[in-house]
């Protein structure tokens, strides 16, 4: 029985989680941008009024996606990706530069960030590519193509330069790992990140001594016959070279604001009124919330406007201050439930295309979520990425909605697959 009604096959849990997050997001924006005078919640001169409009406009977007033939997304993935790359290239000519980053197109009063669109397009193409039956990520050539699909937009975005968006793309390594990319890619990536921060915090000399000891222990305990001292030696050399190059990269490659953000994180000589201001204020706002929070619309830090850009990247500080630990935990649990639900659904897809795409959606959303909240509480360097469904802005809300609802549509369509 083909083309069951969309209403009965759609995953209502995901949809309800989405609706809950969007509503909570709007309420928080309302609190963060409430002016002194009383106005209508539809007042378009106010931030929360505009966000209401943006939310309203997601409804036609959702309907268009749900009533589009599911196969089209797979069939046109090459086209979407191609358009996306062209848009990224076009930025170098027509893009608008804000705060040193050229990542927007401006049409009159309307801004458009192509990297948001490219996220979805890359996910679609990656899913399409990995769903070919002859592809095996154990093979070097397939690995390289898979990495290139992700790597091309990363490269173009780093040129803008927009480290935040690039990081989101890089997180797709989770998807490749799930689909059979050899584990050492993933593991060495994690080790490289850990080494980078350790080398800034501790003398590289101590690190290489510690690693030497760990590797010798590993070698001795490794009972495999294949253990090869030369391989161990080479790996060790690479690690040593990496550790020592960190300081060079830090001093000569990173831009000063990026250095500041890392300094703030590792607590190195920070001026709380300058580069440390944002982080300090966001921690104060969250920290002052206590167990139960100050109550909705009662946040004094929020009202005082101490936290800059509170309605966009710092929106979670309002949650922390007004809803306290319980509220923050609730929001985090809602997000986590959404991520796990998407992964669960992805694992139960009948086609590999849908599964990979679902995984991409979960990865994207999770990375945004983690990076955004972690930077507010001094667990991660300050990187401007929005909190999905919460942060103010039509472009990002619509991008996340499209990303998620394509998956909902694919999932709803699985009864038609065989």
């Amino acid at each position, binding site marked *: 029985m083909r083309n069951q009604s969309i209403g009965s096959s759609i995953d209502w849990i995901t949809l309800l989680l989405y609706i809950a997050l969007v509503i909570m997001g709007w309420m928080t924006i309302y609190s963060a941008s409430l002016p002194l005078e009383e106005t209508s919640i539809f007042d378009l001169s106010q931030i929360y009024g505009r966000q209401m409009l943006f939310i309203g406009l997601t409804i036609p977007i959702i309907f268009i996606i749900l009533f589009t033939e599911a196969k089209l997304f797979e069939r046109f993935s090459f086209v979407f990706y191609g358009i996306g790359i062209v848009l990224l290239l076009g930025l170098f000519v027509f893009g608008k530069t804000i705060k040193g980053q050229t990542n927007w197109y401006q049409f009159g009063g309307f801004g458009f960030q192509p990297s948001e669109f490219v996220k979805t397009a890359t996910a679609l193409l990656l899913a399409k590519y990995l769903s070919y039956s002859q592809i095996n990520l154990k093979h070097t050539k397939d690995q390289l193509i898979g990495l290139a699909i992700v790597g091309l937009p990363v490269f173009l975005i780093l040129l803008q330069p927009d480290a935040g968006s690039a990081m989101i793309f890089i997180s797709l390594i989770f998807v490749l790992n799930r689909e059979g990319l050899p584990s050492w890619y993933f593991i060495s990536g994690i080790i490289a990140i850990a080494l980078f921060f350790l080398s800034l915090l501790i003398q590289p000399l101590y690190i290489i001594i510690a690693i030497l000891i760990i590797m010798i222990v590993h070698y001795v305990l490794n009972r495999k016959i294949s253990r090869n001292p030369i391989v161990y030696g080479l790996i060790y050399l690479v690690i040593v070279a990496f550790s020592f190059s960190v300081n060079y990269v830090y001093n000569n490659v990173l831009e000063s604001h990026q250095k500041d953000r890392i300094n703030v994180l590792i607590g190195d000589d920070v001026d709380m009124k300058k580069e440390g201001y944002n982080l300090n204020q966001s921690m104060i706002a*969250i920290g002052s919330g206590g167990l139960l929070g100050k109550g909705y619309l009662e946040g*004094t*830090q929020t*009202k005082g406007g101490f936290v800059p850009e509170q309605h966009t990247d710092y929106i979670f500080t309002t949650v*922390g201050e007004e809803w306290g630990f319980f509220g923050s935990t609730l929001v985090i649990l809602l997000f986590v439930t959404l991520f796990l639900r998407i992964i669960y659904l992805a694992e139960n897809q009948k086609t590999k295309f849908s599964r990979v795409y679902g995984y991409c959606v979960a990865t994207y959303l*999770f990375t945004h979520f*983690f990076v955004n909240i972690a930077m507010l509480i001094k667990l991660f360097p300050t990187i401007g990425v929005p909190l999905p469904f919460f942060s103010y802005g039509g472009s990002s809300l619509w991008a996340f909605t499209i990303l998620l609802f394509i998956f909902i549509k694919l999932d709803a369509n699985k009864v038609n697959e065989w």
Partner: protein
Amino acid sequence: MRKIVLPAVIIISSIILIARIFYLQVIDESLKLKSENNAIKKIFDFPERGYIYDRNGKLLVANQPSYDIMVVPREIKKIDTIEFCKLLHISKADFIKKIEKAKVYSPMLPSVFLAQLNKAEYAAFQEKERKFEGFYAQKRALRDYQVKDCANIFGFITQVNDAILEKNPYYNSGDLIGKQGVEQEYEEILRGIKGVKYLLRDKHNKIIGPYKEGQFDTIAQQGKDLTLTIDHEIQKYGTELMVNKRGGIVAIEPKTGEILALVSAPTYDPAMLVGRQRSKNYTALYQDSIAKPLYDRGLQATYPPGSPFKIVTGLIGLQEQVIDEQTVVYCNHGGYFGRFIKCHCGQHTLVLNNGIYKSCNTYFETAFKRSIDKYKIPSQSIDVWSKHVKSFGLGQFLGTDMPIGAKGLVPTSKTYKRAYPNGGWRSNTIISNSIGQGEILTSPIQLANMMAVVANRGYYYTPHIVKKIKGQALDEKYTTKHYSTIDKKYFPPVIQGLADVYNVGTAYNLKVEGLEICGKTGTAENKIRVAGKTYQLKDHSIFVAFAPRENPTIAIAVFVENGYWGNRWAGPIATLMIEKYVNGKISRTDLENTMLNGSLLPEYNKIENIIYQRFPERTSEKANDSIAKREIQIGEAKKEEETN
């Protein structure tokens, strides 16, 4: 296995996020205190600023209560703006502007809406304070000046500016801070430390008690009183003597380095910089770029020292043994030093003694020439020479406890290397330095200190203006002797010459019966360049002295700009000051009256006319106008004092 990586990462990182948030929100208390939020109101307890006394215990500066109207923009409810403005005598436009400014600073934190209301102004507001939610009065102490002079010594207090707010976390917007003078130099001692009380408020802004039983509260520490080294009797006398003149007087007690008087003219009433008129008055003083009332001529102005410098030239000659008391120099209305240099001493045969009291140029040019020619290379000898000169405290910051000062200039070989890169300069080239003209520049306080060295026969203490800080010892650097490079035995003959200046020399007409004063007149040329043309102005009148000859109690330098010659203005003023300080009364009331009533304003008027030629848009009538006005102001100030 691969399936669980992402879910595991998601779950673990969420647990980390939740744990971290738990730590920040529930365990870490410091963030809650930091959140200067609505619920916690900080009340500051401002300690009273320390009083300032003169050396005899006369109260110079006390405090008076004043009230700042503070505003918290967010808390403003619907108020009757018209009534409010009327009450505080401000316009509605002003009101809006001030509110906007406060909002920019912070909508949440209090900022000063209207500063420094006096008691009467506050009383009117206080009655209706409850009607104006969002506004409240913050009591502060303002200065209450007991005297009308000493403005240059005290400095003033003012609201902290943004630059300091950013740098120094102690201060909040609207706090007061000392600027210039001892108020700045001893800010931390005078101000004390303010106390903070944290109070808890409920949703309706009502205070419901101390926050956390007051465990974060601090108690205010009182500011400490200062006793200055100034003797207000002669300080006041000096100020009066300098009315309608420009220049400076610095008097020092030689055996301690204590500054007895520090007069700069023109000056202003310190009370002008208190209260709501403060900023208007300050702007007026600041913009007066010709009389420069904010410029401390005693400390900051550097002039060529003129003839008083011959004292140092003579001492160096003796120390270098190129002259002795009997060395004879012939003067024929001048002398030939590569070129003919005139002299007005009127003598023919000169030794050290009459060289000093007749102020013979030729004698000291000869002494200087011999000192320089003593060594083979002039650059070597000039460095020996400047080391001697600098040992008198000339040409360097003295290190006084006033925030301002001037270095002056004592040339060294480097100075001349710059001027003559190819060499070729000799003693004759730089001969003018011998009589205090050439390159050398000194400030009045340096000259007074130089006289202290002579009075002490070879040493000085760093001049300082604070004698005692209640409950605190004086800085060691003010109790350390600094010796000059001149041996003690060379001082008596020079001092004899200085005494003879009064007995038979250039100041014989100023002799005070029964008091042996040692002094030296000076006249220094000066020129200005306006629009590419050089104008010769009236010479500066300079006088340095100390007294009594044995066990001196005062060393003084007086500088009167465009005062013709040393004996005309500076000499009488210095002598009157000394007599007043040492004898306590003035024997020559005729001279006193001449000095008190004398005015050099016509002279300054001429200079202003020259300057205004350069700026045709500022007509000379305007200049006359401003001078006339100032004269009236000063006259009024004097009258007021007399009625007091």
